[in-house]
């Protein structure tokens, strides 16, 4: 055995390993023997850290000395809905400083839900000799000054640095000025992808035009709302090779010359496959995109407040559409049309146009989703906001689409029962998990008892992420999920009557998951302390803005709980409203 292990020189093994890119597989390789572990760790180029507090930067660097691409995630998912107070954490600074020293050849940084400052951005722009890709997804803490630093240092003569991708998707950026774009040097031509859709301010349009014009490899351009429609044609003519485009505001006075200019520009983009943007749509300008509809695979109309007939005319021409994001203005009728025309549809997201109104404002019901499930045989991923649902519809959808992998249903009013029978929606969701054997992600809504969780625990064996709100009756529900869902990685719960018992009874399960979020449930501080003391590899964070939990009885429910596994111990950057309990049973404050 020993001889065999040594008979391949390291270079050969490394070459073989280079064909294995999937992280799970590389992890498996590294456990074979010491020499494989060593070779693998030196040759691992890409690291994904799903929770930035699960491990410290130094540990990653020590294990993988030559990383070129890193992806980090910070805040829990519910931060998107304002459930995580400001200042909770997710600071990327320690990672950037550590990597600036250890990974001079780092090329790609991808962050999600993290806090990044202008100083961090400046450090990034100067530290990495071959920096290529910066993706900031749902991040915050920086301003356009930080972007200016990235732009100014995007190209380096000393090194081979040439920025390729700058993607700010859905980040919150303090808009100090649009001039940051001017900092891209005149001889910088290697931009491949630029996404500034989240920026509020006007960027310097002439700088943008020149930038677009001199970058022949530009394939993704997502503009912000401030870019007016009458400038779009010029941009498109400078970048006919674009594959993905996000328009700015799609409104202007209806003028034939502007229209024909725009239409011509779109026709010139033979590679265009993805469209988004469409703020403030004036329907009269929609036909400008008709010439390219047949090539579209992705269409994001989630900002387009246009009515069903216009939507139908547009989407009806997109026979190759795979991904559609749209407002509920599309109505059931529109979804019928989608089901008839878009036979290749893989992903559908329908967003609410009036989420806070008490009454339905559009005729969009469960029927639309049923039609899609009947007509689109490749449908795998659904996010659907509506106001009524029935068990019958869910069962139909489940039987129609057993290939579904992501099913997120949001019935807008919490606790809404089956509108036909007034029963809970347990059996409907039960059918989903029973038929869709490869379901990885599920979000529940409507009136639900513990029974739905029994179904989930029994059938959802491949489920990795579950979101629960206003559901269940007792700890039994939570127990079913924790004890039954073998592949569960992320569980997020709000406003459910789950308390201590299921949590404590399944404590070990928590170490097999990335994280658990529970807010407005019935977990007591006493249980949190117990968990924190007994489970050293979990960080049990109690988030409570009402002041120290010790000032209330131990049986008083805590506000928010975030539990995640970690090898890095308690973190040091907790704000005053986060409490954690160490195994030495002393309560730690920040």
């Amino acid at each position, binding site marked *: 055995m020993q001889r065999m292990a040594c008979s391949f020189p390291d270079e050969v093994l490394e070459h073989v390993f280079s064909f294995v890119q999937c992280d799970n597989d590389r992890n498996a390789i590294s456990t074979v023997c010491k020499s494989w572990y060593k070779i693998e760790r030196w040759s691992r180029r890409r690291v994904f850290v799903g929770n930035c507090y699960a491990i410290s930067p130094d540990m990653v660097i020590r294990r993988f000395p030559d990383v070129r691409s890193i992806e980090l995630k910070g805040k829990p998912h519910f931060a998107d809905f304002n459930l995580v107070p400001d200042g909770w954490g997710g600071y990327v600074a320690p990672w950037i400083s550590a990597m600036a020293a250890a990974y001079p050849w780092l090329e790609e940084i991808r962050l999600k839900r993290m806090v990044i400052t202008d100083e961090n951005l400046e450090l990034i722009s100067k530290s990495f000799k071959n920096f290529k890709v910066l993706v900031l997804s749902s991040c915050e803490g920086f301003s356009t000054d930080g972007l200016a630093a990235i732009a100014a240092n995007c190209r380096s003569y000393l090194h081979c640095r040439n920025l390729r991708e700058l993607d700010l998707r859905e980040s919150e950026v303090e*808009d100090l000025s649009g001039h940051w774009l001017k900092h891209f040097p005149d001889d910088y031509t290697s931009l491949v992808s630029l996404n500034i859709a989240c920026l509020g301010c006007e960027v310097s349009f002439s700088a943008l035009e020149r930038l677009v014009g001199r970058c022949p490899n530009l394939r993704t351009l997502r503009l912000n709302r401030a870019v007016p429609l009458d400038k779009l044609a010029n941009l498109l003519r400078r970048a006919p090779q674009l594959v993905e485009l996000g328009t700015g505001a799609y409104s202007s006075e209806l003028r034939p010359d502007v229209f024909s200019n725009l239409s011509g520009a779109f026709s010139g983009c033979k590679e265009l496959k993805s469209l988004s943007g469409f703020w403030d749509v004036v329907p009269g300008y929609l036909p400008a995109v008709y010439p390219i509809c047949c090539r579209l695979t992705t269409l994001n109309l989630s900002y387009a407040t246009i009515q069903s007939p216009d939507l139908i005319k547009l989407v009806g021409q997109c026979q190759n559409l795979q991904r559609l994001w749209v407002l509920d203005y599309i109505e059931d009728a529109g979804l019928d049309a989608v089901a008839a025309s878009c036979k290749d549809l893989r992903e559908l997201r329908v967003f609410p146009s009036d989420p806070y109104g008490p009454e339905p404002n559009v005729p969009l019901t469960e029927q639309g989703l049923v039609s899609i499930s009947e007509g689109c045989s490749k449908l795998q991923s659904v996010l659907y906001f509506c106001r009524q649902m029935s068990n019958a519809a869910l069962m139909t959808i489940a039987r129609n689409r057993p290939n579904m992998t992501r099913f997120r249903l949001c019935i807008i009013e919490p606790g809404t029962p089956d509108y036909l029978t007034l029963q809970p929606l347990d059996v409907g969701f039960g059918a989903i998990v029973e038929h869709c054997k490869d379901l990885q992600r599920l979000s529940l809504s409507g009136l639900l008892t513990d029974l739905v969780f029994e179904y989930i625990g029994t059938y959802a064996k491949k489920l990795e992420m579950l979101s629960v709100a206003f559901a269940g009756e007792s700890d039994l529900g939570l127990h079913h999920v924790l004890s039954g869902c073998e592949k569960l990685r992320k569980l997020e719960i709000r406003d459910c009557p789950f308390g201590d018992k299921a949590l404590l009874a399944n404590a070990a399960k928590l170490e097999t998951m990335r994280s658990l979020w529970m807010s407005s449930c019935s977990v007591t501080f006493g249980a949190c302390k117990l968990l924190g003391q007994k489970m050293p590899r979990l960080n049990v964070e109690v988030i409570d803005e009402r002041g120290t939990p010790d000032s209330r009885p131990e049986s008083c429910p805590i506000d928010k709980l975030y539990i995640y596994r970690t090898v890095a111990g308690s973190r040091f950057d907790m704000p005053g409203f986060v409490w954690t309990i160490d195994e030495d049973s002393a309560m730690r404050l920040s």
Partner: protein
Amino acid sequence: MELQLGLALPSNPSKGFDLNYFASEPKEIAVSNRSFTVASSCTDINDINDNNKKRSFDQTFENPTDSTVPRTLPLLLWNHHPNEEDDPKDLENHSLVTFNDKKDGDNGDGLVGWPPIRSRWKNKRLCHENNGAVGLENGFACGIRGSNSTYVKVKMEGVPIARKIDLSLHHSFQTLTETLMDMFGQWWLETGQKDSNQYKLAYQDREGDWLFTEDVSWRTFSRSVQRIKLLKSSR
């Protein structure tokens, strides 16, 4: 595509192997009222392989259901009747949260973070509605309820009349201050004080506390501001 920390029992042995070392580990963990031994130090994962031997196939891909280790490690033994007083199937006794109680403290109108749509996304559409750039046909009202209104009252010290400002149109203190200057401009002309440095911007947050904007980030401010005041700077 995860760096598995391998703190777990392998949940699906045929698919992949967690980074850590399992065969002996689970047996070290005791049940319920005994203390827990922390399995071999996780902090230095470079020392993962202490022995030089390769693992045997069986050892590596041991089916967890065959092992004697309980799949759940209770800190509390589950007795299947967690709520003795409740019949779990009896809906009337269920402890479903009464949703009306869980309202956002400051306006009592909506639940925080529900429906689960991103707030920035909401703000973008609200911006559109406030601008009125494109009228929605058929009179579809996009109701802007209390919890999502972006207008806040602004009062300037010494000025009897308060104004309202639409925060969703602003993304930084600079633009906000400029707009406020314009709004209250006529008062400055009258009082002869045009210098914006003479005034400090203060705001009341969700908890009712008054804070100076110079101490906080825009984001913190915009998320929690309820009211704004322009105070004469005493220095």
